[in-house]
């Protein structure tokens, strides 16, 4: 995706003015971005398994990171099935017990960890999360995956990449790149959790 380096084109949500507080993605934008990510996942799976009947999709496992990565993974799986006709496995992996910031943020309630019956051993796992920020959630998810099995490969798909990485982690599939300042918050709302689809950038300093 060359959009962030080509400011001349503007109609796609990818290159809309970003960083300013307000609505970053509307419900229609979210749907479009998810569709595009689904297509990218299909292409990438096919390129990794040339000649496979199913386009490499039955090898794929989408693992959502709760809270909002979980419904996002289910949506991506549904769109992939709609576009390709092949069902893909979906799971969720709660990473709370793997976090390195529990002492800073305090304990919280856990969410489910559910893997497909076929497991993740020797398959291609795509971690799915809503926002990529410091990279610490992804690091925790990688640690969790190591205990859950031994995938053939792991990739990362995020709806929004807002920068400010603290670890050497990069997403393979990004719905929307947004330059932000550290004081800003990026809030992803999804119907399954929040009753509405939208991505907001807010100017809030207190991060509870």
């Amino acid at each position, binding site marked *: 995706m060359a959009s962030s380096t080509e400011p001349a084109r503007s109609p796609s949500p990818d290159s809309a003015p970003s960083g300013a507080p307000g609505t970053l993605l509307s419900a229609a934008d979210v749907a479009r971005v998810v569709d595009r990510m689904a297509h990218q996942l299909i292409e990438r799976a096919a390129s990794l398994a040339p000649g496979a009947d199913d386009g490499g999709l039955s090898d794929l496992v989408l693992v959502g990171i709760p809270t909002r990565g979980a419904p996002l993974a289910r949506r991506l799986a549904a769109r992939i099935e709609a576009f390709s006709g092949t069902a893909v496995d979906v799971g969720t992996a709660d990473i709370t*017990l793997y976090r390195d910031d529990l*002492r800073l943020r305090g304990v919280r309630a856990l969410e*489910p*960890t559910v893997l497909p019956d076929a497991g993740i051993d020797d398959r291609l796992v795509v971690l799915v999360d809503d926002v990529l920020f410091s990279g610490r959630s992804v690091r925790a998810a990688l640690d969790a995956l190591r*205990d*859950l099995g031994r995938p053939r490969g792991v990739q990362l798909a995020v709806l929004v990449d807002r920068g400010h990485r603290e670890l050497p982690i990069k997403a393979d599939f990004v719905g929307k790149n947004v330059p932000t300042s550290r004081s800003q918050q990026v809030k992803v709302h999804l119907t399954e959790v929040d009753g509405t689809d939208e991505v907001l950038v807010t100017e809030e300093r207190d991060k509870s």
Partner: protein
Amino acid sequence: MKRHLLESADLDRSDATLVLDTAAQIEQALAGREVKKLPTLRGRTVVNLFYEDSTRTRISFELAAKRLSADVINFSAKGSSVSKGESLKDTALTLEAMGSDAIVVRHGASGAPHRLANWVRGSVVNAGDGTHEHPTQALLDAYTIRRRLGRLDGVRVVLVGDVLHSRVARSNVWLLHTLGAEVTVVAPPTLLPVGVGSWPVEVGYDLDAVLPKAGVVMMLRVQAERMNASFFPSAREYSRRYGLDARRMAALSDDAIVMHPGPMNRGMEIAAEVADSVRSTIVEQVGNGVSVRMAVLYLLLGGNEPA
């Protein structure tokens, strides 16, 4: 959650539900995994301070702490400086000076964990104090009931036997009441505490009368080691009136379950064929104990600064 878990009454409904939900998520997350270990409490130290004998509680706490990657030190009064006369306070301060983040304590004196909680900075978990409370046992019992019957609200639970000496009974009465279950205690009058009238329970003396309506029958161990007087005429008579045998089990409704905190006196309060029946959750309770204690340790220690 508070910093300590000293008695069931410390837990309000949302705290107790949080522990049960957390335990369920932990159990689900670890089910079928090759690596049954989580890094959550890496670098923390949990001391099991046991002044009384225990098999399942101590092992269960040890396993729970180890599965969360905490370091575990097992201390039993036998073979320690306690036999040279060291007090509970000095023992606790010694352990804390060595860097313990949590002390899991079992003591023969009711209230010992409360005293301990005033002396140390870390968390204190009551693993049974005298005839007072055993809150993690009540939590694992509640977890087992919820897992088997799908709910706790409105479930009729009958506790049978030596209520007087049973810390398990006290903890269960309060926790189950908090979680909305209806509790009945059935025991010989000599084995009921004086204050039972102020508990949120119904009291009965006829086991056969309450069995048909019960969703859960929890048999309590006859605690011979705490009995310094004769509370009933003979073991045989106790067993006949308050023991759960196959005939009584047949009077239970179809989905009712039989629980026992262990260790069992087979043939005394519970017949072997009942203990080994499909209704019995006794082995399941032990397994659930590890998940529940992991949840308790995570919730008490996970968010704290290390000592």
